[in-house]
């Protein structure tokens, strides 16, 4: 991609806050993600990651603050944001009773692709994944996750959000999944990913760690390891992730 905006920031978050009653799930969070970056969004269960992601993908309105994704305001341009992003959750998002190709056709249709585009991208996807057409329900978890990621990229979004995509997936398939991430990033797609595998955090260009609704640290894995004088992101996480 050589369009003028290619070096721009893909995500700009300023003072983003979300309250549920008296509970502040996301508290004055600000950060940027560069276009084509693999950004690891880390935090313990309940730290506010999912709430933040829901705001960034337009499923939840912020209480205050702002966020732009692919240059679009998540509060006022929600519909356009959704067309420019892909999303894959920790819970498998494809239809088990449909075949691989039927799922691709369904999502392609939802994203407004025409039949020729769907056919071309579907055959490319099967080839890249080395997958034959079959009922999705019959695929092992790791394959379903790789397929779900590819389907999230079907409409060539600017930014893809992955919420614990490799939970419970075996070591080889996790690595194959990350190679799909690298390949997408190399094509210019911005990848925003959460994970509980701290070795995967090391694969990100930059990571942030969220604790009780705040981002407590942000940088490249190397910078952060130097800053805390430790050998792995896991050690930083263990030190920071549990609030006092």
């Amino acid at each position, binding site marked *: 991609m050589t369009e003028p905006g290619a070096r721009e920031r893909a995500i700009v978050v300023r003072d983003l806050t979300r309250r549920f009653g008296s509970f502040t799930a996301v508290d004055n969070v600000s950060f940027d993600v560069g276009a084509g970056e693999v950004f690891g969004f880390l935090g313990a*269960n309940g730290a506010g990651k999912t709430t933040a992601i829901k705001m960034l993908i337009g499923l939840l309105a912020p209480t205050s603050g702002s966020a732009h994704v692919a240059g679009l305001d998540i509060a006022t341009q929600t519909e356009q944001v959704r067309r420019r992003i892909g999303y894959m959750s920790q819970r498998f998002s494809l239809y088990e009773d449909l075949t691989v190709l039927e799922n691709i056709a369904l999502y392609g249709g939802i994203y407004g692709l025409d039949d020729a585009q769907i056919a071309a991208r579907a055959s490319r996807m099967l080839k890249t994944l080395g997958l034959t057409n079959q009922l999705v329900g019959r695929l092992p*978890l790791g394959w379903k996750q790789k397929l779900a990621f590819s389907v999230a990229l079907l409409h060539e979004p600017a930014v893809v959000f992955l919420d614990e995509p490799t939970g*419970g997936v075996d070591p080889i398939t996790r690595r194959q999944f990350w190679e799909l991430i690298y390949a997408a990033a190399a094509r210019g797609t911005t990848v925003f990913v959460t994970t509980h*595998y701290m070795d995967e955090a090391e*694969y990100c260009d930059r990571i942030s760690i969220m604790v009780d609704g705040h981002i407590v640290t942000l940088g490249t894995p190397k910078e952060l390891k130097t800053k805390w004088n430790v050998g792995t992101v896991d050690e930083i996480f263990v030190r920071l992730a549990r609030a006092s």
Partner: protein
Amino acid sequence: MSDPVVVVRDVSKKFAETEALTDVTFDVNDGEIFGLVGPDGAGKTTLFRILTTLVLPDSGTATVLGLDVVRDLWAIRSRVGYMPGRFSLYGDLTVAENLSFFASVFGTTVEKGYDLIAPIYKQIEPFAERRADALSGGMKQKLALSCALVHRPDILFLDEPTTGVDAVSRREFWDQLGLLRDSGLTVVVSTPYMDEAMRCDRVALVQGGRLLEIDPPRDIGRNYPLPLVSVTGADRYQLLLSLRRAPHAHSVYPFGAELHYTDDRPDRDAATVSSELDEYMQSQGFADATSHPISAGIEDSFMELMSAPAQPAP
């Protein structure tokens, strides 16, 4: 040494045309944490279901606490604690209601089991009136473990108890398992996390319904058949792709901040492989890349034994 508490001999199980388990044989010793490590679909859950008397084996025998899983199912059920892989609690019931429900099913009360579950349950007790669905992942696991323990079982079966749980909660969970083991409880647990496999007393690698190797986790790397080298460099993805094209590359995998390169020549000295690799990377334009020989860990061995998982037949 006391008799093994789980004895499995030649157990096989088919579902329609799928062979879930094939001639599985192993023992679990009294008071150990025994780990089952394998990819999704390897047969781990089927094995748990046979040992907890929920599924019958097609052939072979298995005993738990000296009781036969087919003949003595009722006697076994009251003495095992089982935490299935998927969330096993009632989401519409509160934390306290779930716990007393599980106690009553086993004909006991929360009070009678309280001292055993206290180290775990105390951490979620402040949320006793919260609905289970509203708990975070880590708290759900603690409640599920409390429910599996409340009837004071003699052995605990945990099917991927920490999937989806954050790194800190996982550590806490395993600290608790260690304490339970130290108090004499036997634990059989499956996990996709290799750091957790390292905390087991012995580990069985499972793939395609067969046990590939059973050893203490620190010994599993010893049988690694090929020279292994760790590589670091700035542009990791390009480096990875380039290393895969190296003349004797067997496999290249990312490992945290490093890449692990396995050479395809079993008799080559790893130090020689490393210096050859340094030259190769220089020739490919990776000026900052360096390598050094390493010994294999459990994850290296596991991936080597698995190789790429085959996709199922259409």
